[in-house]
């Protein structure tokens, strides 16, 4: 058996500047498949820009991103990427079912079973005929997640996926994320809340567009000698 050592995501000297602001600053990063990465950082630390660079939605000022060995931006590889944006990004006039089918079609997955499966996972199958307009905020988040995962992507970016989701369903979400990783997918989950950090395989702590530190949640705690990741941020930011 050969082990694929190519990282699922490889980031090299990646920089993105917007006029005066350097959102991502000379970042190097290798992310392996089959793992869940927690991308943590306060608002404005560059998490969303980094995700947009990794999906090819933004072009780097310098440096490069490779996803599954292919340099981004690349349209073909987008068929193997799932991206749940911070905004819900769903069509509120369409029904739950129509939304999922639309994104399945764009990703080239025409079979209805995939749409039904993913809706069962987010517990919206029973409400598949409901217009998205009538869903609660948490339900819309779930629908948004379903749209990002319907094509069974290998690399998954989830930008604050659990905002507005109740604790019970949050546990279910993480069980599902864990299962996707076990099947070989790479997950990058951004959050500015820290209570989910312990569920990740590895944490990537971002501040001012740079990688402050990375490591397993326990390692990060040990490194900073604090119990709370939030405090870890405060401590690491000291010069």
């Amino acid at each position: 058996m050969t082990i694929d050592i190519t990282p699922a995501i490889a980031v090299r000297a990646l920089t993105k500047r917007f006029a005066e602001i350097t959102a991502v600053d000379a970042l190097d990063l290798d992310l392996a498949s089959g793992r869940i990465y927690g991308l943590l950082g306060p608002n404005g630390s560059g998490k969303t820009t980094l995700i947009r660079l990794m999906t090819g939605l933004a072009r780097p000022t310098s440096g490069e991103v490779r996803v599954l060995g292919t340099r981004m931006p690349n349209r073909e590889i987008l068929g193997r990427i799932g991206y749940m944006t911070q905004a819900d990004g769903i069509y509120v006039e369409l029904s739950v079912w129509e939304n999922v089918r639309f994104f399945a079609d764009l990703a080239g997955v025409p079979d209805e079973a995939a749409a039904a499966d993913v809706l069962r996972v987010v517990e919206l199958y029973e409400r598949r005929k409901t217009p998205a307009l009538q869903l609660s905020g948490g339900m819309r988040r779930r629908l948004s997640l379903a749209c990002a995962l319907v094509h069974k992507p290998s690399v998954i970016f989830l930008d604050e996926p659990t905002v507005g989701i109740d604790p019970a369903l949050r546990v279910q979400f993480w069980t599902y994320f864990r299962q996707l990783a076990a099947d070989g997918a790479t997950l990058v989950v951004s959050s500015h809340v820290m209570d989910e950090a312990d569920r990740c395989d590895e944490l990537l702590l971002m501040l001012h567009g740079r990688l402050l530190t990375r490591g397993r949640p326990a390692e990060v705690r040990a490194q900073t000698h604090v119990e709370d990741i939030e405090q870890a941020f405060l401590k690491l930011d000291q010069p």
Partner: protein
Amino acid sequence: MNARRTFAIARRIAEFFRRDRRTLALVFVAPIVIMGLLGWVIRDQKPQSSTVAIVNDAGSLGEAARTQIGGQATSAGLTYREDITTDDAARQAIIDGSIDIAVMIRADSTGPKVVVLTEGVNPADDAARVGTLREALAGAFGGQSTPVLEQQSIYNESGTFFDAFAPALVGFVVFFLVFILTGISFLRERVGGTLERLLATPVRRQEIVVGYSLGFGIFATLQVALVLVFVLGTVHIGSIGPLPEINLGLGVPIAGSPLLAFVITLLLAIAAVNLGIFLSTFARTEFQILQFIPLVIVPQVLLSGIFWPISSLPGFLAPIARLLPMTYGIEGLREVLVKGSGIDASTVQLDVSVLAGMAVLLAVVATLTIRREVA
């Protein structure tokens, strides 16, 4: 009524204008643009250089009148084509565009009569020309009682003022509604995060633009078909119970092929779809899409020849008119529906090809505004 709360609301609106500079600018710029255009178009219209033929069918008495009218017409600034002397020649000269008006002097048992023959494609244009002629006639007949004036037209002969306007209005209504619909719809893609999401799938930008044209095209097709049926057709419905009898549909008489008119209107609609996608780049809210009405729609209404012929526009506005899709849509619709021209007519061919070209060009421009980088 609490003054503090009332003022808070008024202040909130003032603050909105202060933040949304575009809207503020529009409050001041739009009326200037609209009033300016109206002023230039109406006041600074180039005097129509009408060419007139005078035909005498009333013997020797009429011959004297012909000479007099001819003299008055020349001094009123009209060009007098003395060589056209028969009804048929005058009629043909109007059709091929070598003259604009024919005056036919007739005599019957009730006395002398003057028939004024115009083209009948643009009623406003005809009215302006006849106005100038009327002055010449009044001068020619001096103090004597002016004979009965009868106005006839080559096209739209039996029709009313509205009948000649209807084709132009069809083009305008469809363009306007399709533009607003697509503009708002695509804006929502941009601000609602769905465009970002679309672009994170393997979809191509061209696929989005062509998909939009197809999707809205289907509804535009139905809309165009319905509008044409309503405007051109009519069904009489007798009184039912307390309901009075009514004619459903406007029953505007047409000379040419409704199918060709349909094709022209559809091309205009596709141009409107892509213009909507393109301009949605420059808006952040639905409100700002509506702001394009005075800037994009109103100039087209004033300049595209719906009311004032392009030939009468002041020098600097005429080239602008030639850049507007609606100009070609309306010219084509009038040519087909009022004049009865077919696809073999060079004007119709020009209008259809320019509209198709504009639709493609706007689709390309729309595609370029859909960037992977939309942050």
